[in-house]
């Protein structure tokens, strides 16, 4: 029995009846929403990046700042430190990132869940970072790949460029909107490894999802202040 047609009409009618106190000609934006909260907050870039590093680290994430020229080495070291022998990578990762000495599983023709589950880790970039909350955001864009590759492997190594870091949550939302409106990109906010506080409210890291998250923040210490203050496009 298909009840959905009548259900739709019934619910909409019920809503209209319920809202008889709302004048018929009132438009939704007649209800004023005062956006007096901080929508952006300019702070020195150095401060923003430091805050990001600090707050990501508070989630028991290992954060390291490296220069572009040392990135590949840092990636290789991290993989070695976590005994990563089989590393999942999105198909568009730059060659210059790729560490030697590990078997690379490129997610070009869609690795199976089995393959992803039995890998040792995954390496990606990100869409942006949020300093205020220590959050990394993935939106399936450049250097990120599809969602499952950062979900099944037990170790996630994420590269964040300093010009991908914004200060506040509203700034992040604003920058992510375009890809959603135009390309319907799915988005994942990651703030530390997974955790539960269900057992007597003791926070336990790593229930599902990668139990270890490492972040490499790529600094360009020799950029001019002007160059520093421009953010990379999402």
């Amino acid at each position, binding site marked *: 029995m298909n009840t959905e047609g009548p259900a739709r009409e019934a619910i909409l009618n019920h809503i209209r009846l319920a809202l008889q106190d709302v004048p018929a000609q009132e438009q939704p934006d007649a209800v004023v929403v005062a956006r007096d909260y901080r929508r952006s907050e300019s702070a020195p870039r150095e401060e923003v990046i430091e805050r990001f590093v600090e707050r990501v680290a508070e989630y028991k994430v290992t954060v390291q700042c490296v220069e572009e020229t040392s990135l590949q080495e840092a990636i290789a070291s991290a993989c070695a430190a976590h005994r990563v022998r089989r590393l999942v990578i999105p198909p568009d990762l730059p060659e210059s990132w790729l560490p030697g000495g590990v078997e690379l599983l490129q997610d070009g023709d869609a690795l199976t869940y089995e393959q992803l589950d039995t890998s040792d880790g995954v390496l990606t970039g990100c869409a942006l970072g949020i300093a205020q909350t220590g959050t990394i955001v993935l939106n399936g864009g450049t250097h990120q790949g599809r969602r499952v590759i950062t979900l099944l492997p037990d170790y996630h190594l994420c590269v964040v460029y300093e010009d991908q870091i914004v200060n506040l949550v509203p700034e992040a939302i604003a920058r992510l909107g375009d890809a959603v409106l135009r390309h319907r990109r799915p988005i994942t*906010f990651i703030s530390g*490894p*997974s955790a539960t506080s269900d057992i007597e409210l003791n926070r336990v890291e790593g*229930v*599902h999802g990668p139990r270890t998250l490492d972040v490499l923040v790529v600094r360009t210490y020799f950029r001019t202040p002007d160059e520093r203050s421009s953010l990379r496009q999402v």
Partner: protein
Amino acid sequence: MSETLSPKQATHPLPTFQVSAKQALANTQLRRNLYKATHTIRAKRAQVVGEMPDWQELREAGRALKERVLRHLDTYLLELEASVQRAGGHIHWARDAEEANAIITRIAADHGAREVIKVKSLTTDEIGLNRALAANGINAIETDLAELIIQLAGESSSHILVPAIHKNRAEIRELFLSKLEVDSLTDAPNELANAARAHLRRKFLSTPVAISGVNFAVAETGTVCVVESEGNGRMCVTLPRVLISVMGVEKVIPSWQDLEVFLQLLPRSSTGERMNPYTSLWTGVSQGDGPQEFHLVLLDNGRTQVLTDTVGRQSLNCIRCSACLNICPVYERVGGHAYNSVYPGPIGAILTPQLVGIENASSLPYASSLCGACYEVCPVKINIPEVLIYLRGRAVRYKQRSRSLRTRLNPESVAMRLMARTFASRKLYEQAQRLAQLGQLPFQHGDVIDALPGPMGRWTAMRDLRPVPRQSFRDWWRSRQAAHDASEEVRS
């Protein structure tokens, strides 16, 4: 498994709060667990909210956005429908629990599912989805650790956010040893979490149909948002072929930008974190990434009825953060089961009677001392004390209009009406004062009254009462005035 609520069951009055609370208060393990849990979360929330210089501005924006949505709910739901469909998803409308369950069961059955994996969703608890699926031979596997715990224990949730808050680690260990495939286990939280992880991993990788709830659904873009901590949400909304999300119609928000408000209000209010570990936002279906079939079920189940009430309607602002539960001195001591509802605590005390009918939950609006702490912490500014008092008015009027004479003339109602008449006249009021001064004599032992009959006995069961003074304030005032006038006379 206790009965969960639904307006369809409106002919079943819930057990009274007083009775359930009394039982809960005597459970010392529960009391200790609740104390620890609520005080821990309170401190965390206070810390991260204290960091925010614009917290009050965010709360106001949250409230205003909800007001905007509710006043134009039909417009926004239609916009959401169009957006989701444009993005390749399917929309279903369900008037009540039965319809919602039928829709979901059909989709699961159409895909030949014998099992489905679930992310914790209060909405699915509300409609009794698991039971309905089971009745059709489909096993719903809860994947949140706490939901897993209570599912294995055959119990029901006692807290919106931390459903197994009433269980300590020793109890959980015992449960896992008996119900999961583990040989030995300590009660260390990380070992318990690992046991759950291993058990559920197999399910995540192999179950083709998943069911989730919805924290927010954006009308402008058709984006659905799930906020979580453990990663089971990500598993459920990413791995299966088919995803069904169930949302109460009030969960819609107008535009993409509005997430900037709610994604700040929710984590800080619920788990007391700057941001929860994982938030997933997806828009319809994405080629080659995640489920290729997406269904969004829009559920009414009494919400449009709540919408009708211009005072009660603000209850629909709720974003299910549980800040009110965590701050409530009543909830802290009785726990969630005492409310006999899927929605406990302060929000439950106002939402439940509106969803199931005041006649079936008339004790809930009284489950509060009106201390106002909940209103202070509510991120969307629901004036819970105001709605509680308003619902008490509805409860009283319901009794006053009862067909049963006994109900109409219940002792409280008689006493209140009598007192109202007494207070409305100075003469009657002063007479009543005299009466009290005299009438207390049989109960007065020296300087104290320690045993009163009838309902007043509930006071003296645990507290002494100072006797009514023989001279009231007005007696003193009058004699003072008289003495003053007399001395004036003498002087003149």
